[in-house]
C-alpha cells in the first residue's frame, strides 16, 4: 500500500493497520524520515536549515512507489508493506516519509524496510527545496544514496 499526501500521519495507527488480524506476523520494521535542522555530515560543519518544501511529480510518484513496493514483495515474503510520502512545505521535526513492513521473520521485515527506504530516495521523483539563511536552495543529489541503493542490485 502506498500513499502520497500533504497531511501528516499517525505512526502507531499505520503500524497497527499493516496486517490487522494476521497472526503469522512475527516482526514489524519501520523507518520514519523527519525534517532535520542541518545539511551535511554533522551539525557543526553543516548548514542550518529551516523548513523544506518537497515538490513531486504527481502520477509518476504513485507509479514509482507502487513499483518499489511490488519489488520488495517479490524479494521478501511480506505480510504487510506500507509507504507514505508527504509533499509540500514541512517544518523542522515534521515527518516526511514512513516505510513499514511486516513479516513472519524479523530479517525479512528489516531487510525489506532498508531496501524500501534506500530505493525510495533514489527512485521516487521528489525534489527538496531547503530554506536557509541565504534563501531557498534546491538540494543537489549526492552519490551516497546511490551507493546505498546499489547494495540491492541483483548480481
Amino acid at each position, binding site marked *: 500500500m502506498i500513499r502520497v499526501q500533504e497531511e501528516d500521519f499517525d505512526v502507531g495507527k499505520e503500524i497497527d493497520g499493516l496486517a490487522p488480524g494476521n497472526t503469522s506476523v512475527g516482526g514489524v520494521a519501520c523507518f520514519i*524520515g523527519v525534517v532535520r535542522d542541518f545539511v551535511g*555530515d554533522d551539525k557543526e560543519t553543516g548548514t542550518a536549515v529551516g523548513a523544506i518544501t*518537497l515538490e513531486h511529480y504527481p502520477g509518476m510518484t504513485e507509479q514509482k512507489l507502487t513499483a518499489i513496493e511490488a519489488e520488495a514483495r517479490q524479494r521478501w515474503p511480506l505480510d504487510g508493506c506500507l509507504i507514505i510520502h508527504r509533499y509540500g512545505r514541512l517544518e523542522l521535526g515534521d515527518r516526511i516519509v514512513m516505510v513499514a513492513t511486516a513479516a513472519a521473520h524479523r530479517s525479512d521485515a528489516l531487510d525489506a524496510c532498508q531496501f524500501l527506504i534506500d530505493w*525510495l530516495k533514489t527512485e*521516487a*521523483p521528489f525534489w527538496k527545496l*531547503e530554506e536557509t539563511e541565504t534563501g531557498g536552495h*534546491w538540494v543537489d*543529489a549526492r552519490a551516497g544514496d546511490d551507493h546505498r541503493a546499489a547494495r540491492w542490485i541483483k548480481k
Partner: protein
Amino acid sequence: MKILYFAWLRTKTGVAEEDVTPPAEVGDVAALIEWLKGRGDGYAEALSDLSVVRVAVNQEYAGLDHPVGPDDEVALFPPVTGGKGR
C-alpha cells in the same frame, strides 16, 4: 507533446507545464532538448548541463536516445533528492 519541468528546471524555464509542437525531425529526447533550448535564455540555461538533468517519458525514466512523439508526456528534472541533504 506535453512537457513538464520540476525543481530548478521549472524555476529557470519559468514554466511548470507546456504543450509544444516540435518539428517532425525531433524524434528523440536529445533532439527535443536541443530544440527546447532554442525557446529562450531560461531554457538554454536550464538545459545547458545534461549531466544534472533527468528525463521521464510517459512517467518512466528514459535516456537521451528514447523516442518521443506528439502524444508523449516528457518530464525534465534534476536527479531526485527526496531525502537528500545529509
